[in-house]
């Protein structure tokens, strides 16, 4: 039984009858109210840190009865570590200095179990003299556990969403990869079937043989390109790609790429402006980047719209720009575009693995450079910009 509890029957008004008004104005009213509060431990502490009063809430939360704690130092409620660190005294000093101190942390019940306390300590002054403290403590263990469970659930939910997205990306990839690999296999099989059929019909002339071989060669090259891309991605994702930096001229590399594409792409769609741009770079890898960007520009725009390639020295080192007047892209798709197996929404019917930009970004990053994309929006064309430093970072293969 808490000591502050006063039995109303012990006090009687002058009329002999006790009224609510008597109680409300009597000095014990506050004590009665405080004592009746079960959700908060509310008690007074002397200036030296000893417990003076104890309400029912305190008894319920901390497990001690009033007779067990009155006169005891508040250290009793703290963990051993907190006591050793001088926390009880520090909180009182803080309250004495500032008028009030918050004290949130683990406390120990009488039975040794811990609870999470959210407490405030208020200094009580009378004419400048500190005569004690009022402490209000709430047991927040359940709320804290609920918050922790909530946090845990949120973490798990996020992990599950990430796993689901990874699965979707994998399925997307398998579907794209199987389509992309089946296409050259179909060409290959058709070219062989056509040669066999011509032979069977006795019309297998030199022209048919030549054309058949060229088609077979093209299909096989396409398949190897796809396989190399797939291997590249797994290497780049593991970060185990080695770069071989030498002194190169970007305009020479770009010219080779353009020549190669011009052989396949009629109508002189590729326009270019190539300034001599000597830097230190991995020539084969940079060729891959330019080739990927040019391939995209041609794929995502249609004949006879031109695509533009520009190579020029810049203050960082070098700038590569590939611009088309094609399908463009929605602004919110810009960042995802460089992720593996991600393709623009406009790309549903465009062949490709969706790996070119990811590979390009990783290669550019390996050179210490940066790749970015700009588009005025859906249907308004796309510009890719690559900046490369004069010298790649040191961690690569220096070459010399």
């Amino acid at each position: 039984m808490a000591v502050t509890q006063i039995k109303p029957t012990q006090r009687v008004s002058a009329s002999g009858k006790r009224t609510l008004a008597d109680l409300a104005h009597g000095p014990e009213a506050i004590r009665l109210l405080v004592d009746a509060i079960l959700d908060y431990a509310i008690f007074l502490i002397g200036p030296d840190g000893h417990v003076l009063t104890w309400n029912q809430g305190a008894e319920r939360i901390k497990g001690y009865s009033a007779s067990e704690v009155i006169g005891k130092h508040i250290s009793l409620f703290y963990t051993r570590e907190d006591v050793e660190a001088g926390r009880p005294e520090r909180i009182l000093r803080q309250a004495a200095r500032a008028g009030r101190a918050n004290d949130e942390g683990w406390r120990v019940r009488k039975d040794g179990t811990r609870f999470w306390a959210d407490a405030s300590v208020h200094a009580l002054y009378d004419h400048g003299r500190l005569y004690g403290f009022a402490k209000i403590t709430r047991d927040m263990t359940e709320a804290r556990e609920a918050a922790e469970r909530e946090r845990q659930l949120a973490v798990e939910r996020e992990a599950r969403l990430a796993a689901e997205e990874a699965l979707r990306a994998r399925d997307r990839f398998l579907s794209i990869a199987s389509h992309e690999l089946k296409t050259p296999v179909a060409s290959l099989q058709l070219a062989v079937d056509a040669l066999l059929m011509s032979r069977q019909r006795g019309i297998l002339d030199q022209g048919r043989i030549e054309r058949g071989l060229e088609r077979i060669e093209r299909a096989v090259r396409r398949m190897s390109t796809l396989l190399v891309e797939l291997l590249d991605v797994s290497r780049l994702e593991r970060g185990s790609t080695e770069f071989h930096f030498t002194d190169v001229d970007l305009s020479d590399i770009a010219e080779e790429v353009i020549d190669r594409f011009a052989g396949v792409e009629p109508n002189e769609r590729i326009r270019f402006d190539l300034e001599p741009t000597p830097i230190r770079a991995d020539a084969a890898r940079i060729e891959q980047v330019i080739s990927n960007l040019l391939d995209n520009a041609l794929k995502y725009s249609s004949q006879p719209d031109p695509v533009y390639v520009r190579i020029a020295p810049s203050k960082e080192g070098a700038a590569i720009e590939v611009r088309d007047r094609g399908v463009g892209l929605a602004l919110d798709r810009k960042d995802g575009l460089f992720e593996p197996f991600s393709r623009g929404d406009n790309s549903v019917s465009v062949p490709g693995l969706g790996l070119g930009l990811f590979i390009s970004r990783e290669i550019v990053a390996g050179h210490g450079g940066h790749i970015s994309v700009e588009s005025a929006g859906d249907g308004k064309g796309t510009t890719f910009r690559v900046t490369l430093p004069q010298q790649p970072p040191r961690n690569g293969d220096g070459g010399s």
Partner: protein
Amino acid sequence: MGARRVLVVDDDPTLRETLGEVLTDDGFDVRVAWNGRDALEKLDGWNADVVILDVMMPVMDAFGFQSALDQRPEPSPPVILLSAAPGLASAASELGAASVISKPFHLQDLIAEVRRVVGPMNGTAPAGV
């Protein structure tokens, strides 16, 4: 009656050229197109008896092509879908295709399917048979 007309629509140049050559050898009158839009142009004033159609193509895919085709006054030719795309069966029913062949395929199977769709040949005899 002249040779049966076949329009081959595929963005893969190897497939397009080879099929064009083989079907010509086989006695068909063949045109090739590299996407749906190109195919519509090829069909201008030249009615095909059958269209061999890839599904995924740049510029205009099979769906865009079919809906443009259906808006023309003349009857649309039957379509044989030829694709490596996943979900080919549902694409075929959406497009109302006469037939579906998934890549890779055997040339003999495709030729048999083309003959089945266009009906009996009474034009040029197949070369060398």
